[in-house]
């Protein structure tokens, strides 16, 4: 059965769209990643014009992340207090990132910079997570992570505006998560993705949050950032296709629910190693794609 996408003005297989949404939703619920980095290229591949694919994807991420946030909230995995700080930092960083991109474009180095940033960031985060999780798995049981993880932070613990985040079982100066998210926001704006792939590892390794809470909190803040992007795309580029977003969401919200439940059955280290493997696979695919000469030297522009 086919479905007409009224704003994109094209017709696509219904099952194909639901299936793509379900796979991405599963990853979203399991790892707290929005799926923008994965779903947009898939949509382009199945024939949806790039501008509509990117904008409608951000709309479906709202549905997937609200479903994921609700599921994680019931499991006690959403830290609203820390999530709000992260959201503010992410939005600030995103705005700075947009200016950085504009500067790079003016210099004619934007695409090269984006590609290199992608490879370096994904490779670095994926590699580190993979090695660390593997060592942890080999050691056996998880070392309980509680308030001890915030001890011995030297300079960081002497920063002003120290605050307890009981849900995440950490104590930080508000400045730390804020600045961290500013940098992630800059990176995600440059890379053109939601930032879940960078944010979750940052929360786990630098803010010392438990993996499950990092995933739930990340979904909470993705909900707001994707809503902002959707509104912007609908009013400036007229490229949000609600029908496409809803069909994708039908798959992704169910996938997110299953993902959240599967995540609950896995240990934090197992989740981390799975996420690291996916990050490394994406990075490897990108690296190979950069080295192989393409058959056509043109590609439809996303229209940034």
């Amino acid at each position, binding site marked *: *059965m086919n479905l*007409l996408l*009224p704003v994109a003005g094209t017709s696509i297989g219904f099952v194909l769209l639901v299936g793509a949404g379900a796979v991405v939703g599963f990853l979203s619920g399991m790892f707290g990643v929005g799926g923008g980095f994965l779903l947009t290229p898939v949509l382009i591949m199945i024939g949806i014009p790039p501008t509509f694919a990117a904008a409608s994807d951000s*709309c479906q991420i709202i549905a997937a992340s609200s*479903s994921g946030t609700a599921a994680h909230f*019931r499991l006690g995995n959403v830290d609203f207090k820390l999530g709000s700080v992260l959201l503010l930092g992410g939005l600030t960083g995103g705005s700075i990132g947009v200016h950085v991109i504009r500067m790079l474009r003016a210099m004619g180095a934007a695409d090269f910079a984006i*590609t290199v940033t992608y490879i370096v960031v994904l490779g670095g985060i994926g590699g580190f997570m993979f090695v660390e999780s593997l060592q942890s798995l080999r050691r056996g049981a998880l070392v309980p992570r509680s308030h001890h993880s915030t001890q011995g932070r030297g300079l960081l613990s002497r920063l002003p505006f120290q605050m307890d985040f009981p849900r995440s079982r950490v104590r930080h100066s508000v400045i730390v998560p804020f600045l961290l998210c500013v940098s992630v926001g800059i990176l995600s704006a440059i890379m053109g993705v939601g930032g879940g792939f960078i944010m979750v590892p940052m929360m786990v390794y630098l803010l010392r949050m438990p993996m499950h809470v990092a995933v739930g909190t990340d979904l909470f803040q993705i909900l707001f950032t994707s809503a902002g992007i959707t509104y912007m795309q609908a009013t400036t580029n007229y490229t949000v296709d*609600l029908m496409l977003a809803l069909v994708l969401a039908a798959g992704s*919200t169910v996938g997110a629910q299953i993902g959240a439940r599967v995540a609950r059955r896995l240990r934090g280290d197992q989740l981390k190693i799975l996420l690291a493997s996916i990050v490394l696979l994406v990075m490897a695919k990108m690296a190979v794609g950069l080295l192989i000469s393409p058959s056509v030297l*043109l590609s439809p522009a996303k229209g940034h």
Partner: protein
Amino acid sequence: MMKQSKFHVSVATILAMLFSGSAHAATSPQPVFLKVTPSVIPMGTFYAGARLQVEGHVPVGSEVVVVVRGEDVHEVFNKVGRVGPIWVNTGKVSISGIPSLLMIFSTKPIATCLARPQIDRYQLDATAVKMQIKFTPRESGGDPVADDFLKLKMGQGSYRLAVGDIRTADAFEDDLPFKLDIAWPKSAPPGTYEVRAYACRHGEIGPTFAVPLQVVEVGFPAMIAALARERPATYGIISIMVAVIAGFGIDFLTTCIFKRKVSAH
């Protein structure tokens, strides 16, 4: 009522004059005739493309060329180039002077029916289409880029050059009837298209005849498209709200299902 029907007749006459090769028809004793069924393709919710039947006749002894052409558009592409060992986007190129859709059908290879100037004038093959492409910035264009553009379009199904799809029947008096079935691509956007038949003889294009083909969104898709176009802010807010409700709704449903499963155990 009367006024309305008179208005429709006048519009139809103007459209027929605009689209038909009236100049050719006036000078030719055997004008080409063409009929497209359906003349309007409705795009409903479950639209999956359409079958288009083109039938008509040309003067006996002619070869038939049928061209389906969309409105001219301009598109932006990334140019991929090599920087050191890697392939990255090296810039953008805007391509204009191109139809949104182009399908050329002929009874014989175009080059065997027509002389090159005629092919170029009526844009009846890839070389002719390439000549019409305009690049911005100009220096970013050229033959290799035009070739890649055509490859891309043909891969997407928006451009098609087919020989032998047109079936001709026995001549009736001085007319040679022909038929063509076209699988209308589901990816073709809504808009006005032109279907034109050319009669070719002795390397020249003779009489031609064209009819318009409308592809229009109807029902719910038409409503959504209009809202997105005319009230983007409202549409944006509705999109966000619907997505949030869908997310929480599915969460509620799955929670009920999982709870029922757990209590059943």
